[in-house]
């Protein structure tokens, strides 16, 4: 019965060791996908390389399907898996700022870490910028605290919000992903691809 660390008393070192192992897997998968290259990532927004979309949606859907099936077979209690709380203002404004950061820096924090680990110095600068950003946020927190925590909706889930079963919502999401994958591969053929092979 899972989640293991929630339902069982496990020593802290083991919990942290699991975190470390999962981190290894996470970093490995990101690097193998090619997320250690900012120009490959940026290709998403100019249509020449849509790896981001493919990896992102495949990963989310695989985890979604896996968790739904494990739950159906009584192996995983989904009620005990963290669901991100929804703060409307914070999510909207924060994600727009993140989008701007993404197109300027060419990384997101996770991909920046995987790029730095293979020696990309631009990723190092990106992460230093990230530390600065986190510091600025912490210092400005008192002034934006209200913005960050108003309009709170709780940990709502899409299926509840739309009033369908989680399985049905997953199915619709999968159909959307299949359509997006098809469009993405069409786009890759259409938009000129700058020569980034020397970089990767």
């Amino acid at each position, binding site marked *: 019965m899972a989640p293991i660390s929630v339902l069982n*008393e496990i020593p802290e070192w083991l919990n942290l060791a699991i975190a470390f192992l999962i981190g290894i897997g996470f970093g490995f998968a990101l690097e193998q996908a090619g997320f250690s290259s900012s120009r490959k990532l940026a290709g998403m927004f100019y249509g020449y390389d849509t790896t981001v979309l493919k990896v992102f949606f495949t990963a989310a859907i695989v985890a979604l399907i896996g968790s739904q099936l494990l739950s159906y077979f009584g192996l995983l209690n989904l009620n005990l898996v963290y669901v991100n709380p929804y703060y409307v203002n914070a999510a909207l404004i924060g994600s727009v700022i993140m989008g701007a950061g993404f197109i300027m820096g060419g990384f997101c924090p996770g991909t920046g870490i995987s790029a730095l680990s293979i020696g990309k110095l631009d990723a190092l600068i990106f992460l230093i910028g990230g530390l600065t950003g986190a510091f600025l946020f912490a210092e400005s927190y008192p002034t934006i605290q209200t913005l960050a925590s108003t309009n709170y909706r709780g940990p709502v889930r899409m299926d509840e919000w739309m009033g369908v*079963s*989680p399985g049905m919502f997953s199915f619709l999401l999968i159909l959307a992903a299949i359509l997006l994958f098809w469009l993405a591969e069409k786009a890759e053929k259409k938009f000129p691809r700058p020569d980034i092979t020397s970089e990767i």
Partner: protein
Amino acid sequence: MNARIKLSILLAGVGLLLAFLPFNASKTFRLSPGELLKINYQDHLFTVDEVARFMNSEDSAVQLIDLRSNAEFMECNIPGSINIPLDDLLNPDWEGYLNQGEKRNIFYGNGDETAAEAWTITTGLGYKNIFVMKGGMNEWYKTVMLSKFEGDRITPRENALFENRYRARRTFTEINSLPDNLKRQYLEAKRLEESQLDGGCE
């Protein structure tokens, strides 16, 4: 055949399967009917005297849960309890409280019926550490609040028992005699301790 088409076929197939799953496993009982029936309910009961002792010693490994309506709860409750009316039992906000492996949750209603229902539902859902205060609030009132020692000579055992009841009675009366606004503050403070699931980038 490229990877996209293979993956699309696989995902579409599994998606179709998911769309027609007949029940939502995160909302149904995890124990099988047989398992649930076999659990010895008597092993999950506490007497009011035991609960009074937990209350007197402010035992942090015990969480009392009042299943009655909010109005009844506000009128009087066992100090240290939190109020989860039976109607609200499955509200996800309480899941972190009820579904955990550390504290013992002790349910009580006014009688035995509500608590037994709530016990069966939560135990069926796979929650551990769910117990019931036998007799509920009526038994508590009769035994802890109103009983008097009658007899000529008191044995040490009875003495300890009544000592315990008197202490519980005093705390119960003190806390429940607070004006409503103070009582609410006391309850809010309790509520904030609610354990939450850990995750995200927080």
